[in-house]
């Protein structure tokens, strides 16, 4: 029995059914950027560290931004629309390559048409 090379905490990554559709059997190995899904249990280390859904961003475009412009921004930043969260122009988007959420948010914020972009943060029951 070999001790863990680092003192891992119990880290768990949730692979959402939707996000998983295109992933191969090795998907998620290593768990980098993984997210915690442990039930709230006192004393379990590592609990509560997951801050946002992996591979997703929320983007608000300026009023009047046309669909073509949004589509071209998506192509440039490698995003797909999951859904319009609230009309008219808050979009939930999925990162289709392995760019990190942080990098994607930074790239999006360079566009004049983007009011803001942010990770899809998580909230927990209290």
């Amino acid at each position, binding site marked *: *029995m*070999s001790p*863990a*090379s*680092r*003192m*891992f*905490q*119990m*880290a*768990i*990554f*949730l*692979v959402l*059914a939707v996000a*998983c559709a295109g992933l191969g*059997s*090795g*998907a*998620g*190995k*290593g*768990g980098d950027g*993984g997210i915690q*899904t*442990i*039930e*709230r*249990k006192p*004393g*379990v*280390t*590592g609990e509560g560290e*997951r*801050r*946002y*859904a992996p591979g*997703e961003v*929320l983007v*608000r475009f300026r009023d009047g931004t046309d669909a073509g412009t949004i589509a071209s921004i998506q192509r440039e930043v490698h995003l797909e629309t*999951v*859904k319009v*969260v*609230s*009309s008219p122009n*808050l979009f*939930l988007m999925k990162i289709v390559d392995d760019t990190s959420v942080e990098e994607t948010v930074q790239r999006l914020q360079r566009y004049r048409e983007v009011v*803001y972009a*942010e*990770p*899809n*943060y*998580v*909230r*927990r*029951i*209290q």
Partner: protein
Amino acid sequence: MGKRVIRILLAMFVMLSIFWGTDIGSGGGLPGGRRPAYAPGELLVKYKPALRKAAAEYLRQRWGVSTLRTFHDIGVHHVKLPADLAVEEALDLYRNDPDVEYAEPNYYRYLKATPNDTSFGLLWGLSTISAPGAWDLRTDCAAAVVAVIDSGVDFRHPDIAANVWSNPAEVAGDGIDNDVNGYVDDVMGWDFVAGDALPMDSNDHGTHVAGTIAAVGDNARGVAGVCWTGKLMILRAFDAVGVAKSSDIIAAMAYARSKGARVINASYGGGDFSQAERDEISNLEAAAILLIAAAGNEGTDNDSTPSYPASYDLPNIIAVAATSQDDSRAGFSNYGQNSVHVAAPGTNIYSTKPGRQTIFSDNFDDGSIGDWTVQSPWGVSTNAYGGTGWSISDSPGAGGDYANNIDVSARPTNPIDLSGKTGAVLTFKLKGTILAGDALYVETALDPATWTPLLGLYGDSQNEWVDLVVDLGNLDGAATAYFRFRLQTDGSGTADGVYIDDVAVTAAAVQDTYQFLQGTSMATPHVTGLAALVWSHTPALTHLQVKERILNCVDRLTALATTTPVLTQGRINASNSIRNVPAPPVGLSATAASSSQINLTWANTYYGQIGFKIERKEGASGTFAEIANLSTNTTSYNDTGLTSSTAYTYRVRAHTSDNDSAYSSEVTATTPAPSSGGGGGGGGGCFIDTALGK
């Protein structure tokens, strides 16, 4: 002796009527959970002493009024009115009669309304917030739809089902989006996690919260909510483990806004500021919708470490801390002098629990996995939860590590039948070590040829058993469903692997079950229920006036005043809120500013519109008289034109449009003797505003 006691009681009854008579509104049997204020066809009348007999005879003949009883000690007649004379008309007649000292309805008195729910005695929180006093006026909240954004609600629970909101614009089960809001058959809300119309609770949290808001009251069953009847819109954004993405929360808020909710319960939080979430709550503000939010369970100061949504600086938010049974702050509860507004009971809260039935379970304690399909080396191990019996492991046997470059799984052989089921959840206990680069997956399938991973994990549980919950909502309704545990490893090294025990699949069931929980999550729905109750009782209030009622009518608690404060220094009081009786000012102090001026200040604990009445007395033997009536929410008053070398004592009351508060504590200051010469120089300093200064 018995007769004498009765007479005293009767006299007390009448006296109570006299003192409290004006507190109660007009009208007999009123709809909407109200109870009649007085007996129809009856009055209590007191004639002037010399005229009693003659007047009674005259009235009997003139209007057909008969005397039922006379209370000689107090000279009051209990009279019966003829059928064609209404109480209001008769009152006018009597009150215009110079021979009548007073006349009034024969008011009903109710024992403080307590419902007959069997476990009402466990609901200390409702007693503490004086809910029974509010229930004297109203128990029904149907006029203010409440949206519960949570882990779903057991909408079939026998103590909740009758209070679930029904979407009037949607036809159940016709497969058509009748109200064209993008959600098909959304008759009671929506499940934003699973994307369907059955927002069943697979966590327990949302059902507990919903029960505190509006479990059916006075139904001889279980618990009562702050609202005995009401309309709960169920918006599921949190999964079985109690986590939600802001995208789902925002969509749920937009749904509540478009479907007419007046109050939203947000018993959740997180540390990251989301501009998108704040924007949507701004939309709620524009739509006059209140968001009641848990302050958070970290035991920290939200003023310095925000918790969202409680900490967004928007007027329609009420941030709620938790108190315990002795009215101290619950140790876990966040606080914040500026950003947390009120507290409410949040420990040992008893409420509804979703019914669950076990569909599949195996604790392996027969030492057999004959009914499992496993790939070697999966097998049973004596490293079991609880120290006895068996578990299953990817590498059983003493000191056995898993191997490099393997991909092996274990699953129950027979499919699980989830047809007709909702809220399916897989639970199991796990301990062990898996290296980074390797992973244990939990996968599900409708056909054992095609698997979908729902969870992957690696790490070290530090020799502890960990409870894991996997939301199987994607399998709800499937007649043949499968799950499996799958270990995949790379070639970079090996470890002990995992032990899995007490595996179970459960689904929602109709059961009459309840449980205790604690958290600012449990405090929040007390406030949500109160907002709906106040709004239903006084529908003309704006959303910010409802907030004023809740924040300004609290019971002050020392535990919320100093080191771990909230804005109002108070825990909610439902009876005072529904009657608009404000809490008294606290922190009153008086300072002599000159020989002719004393400056008063008090703590900034009120919200919105509130006024103050200042009373003063001079010297030790003086009597209090009102010297100012301030109509703004201020924290100071400068009393000028005073006599030098004189002691002045002050007390202050807050006043709403309806009621004065009790008095503050009294403070005394003494003006100094006039300074000899250069007195004019000090004059300018008299008007320094001492208000807040921050």
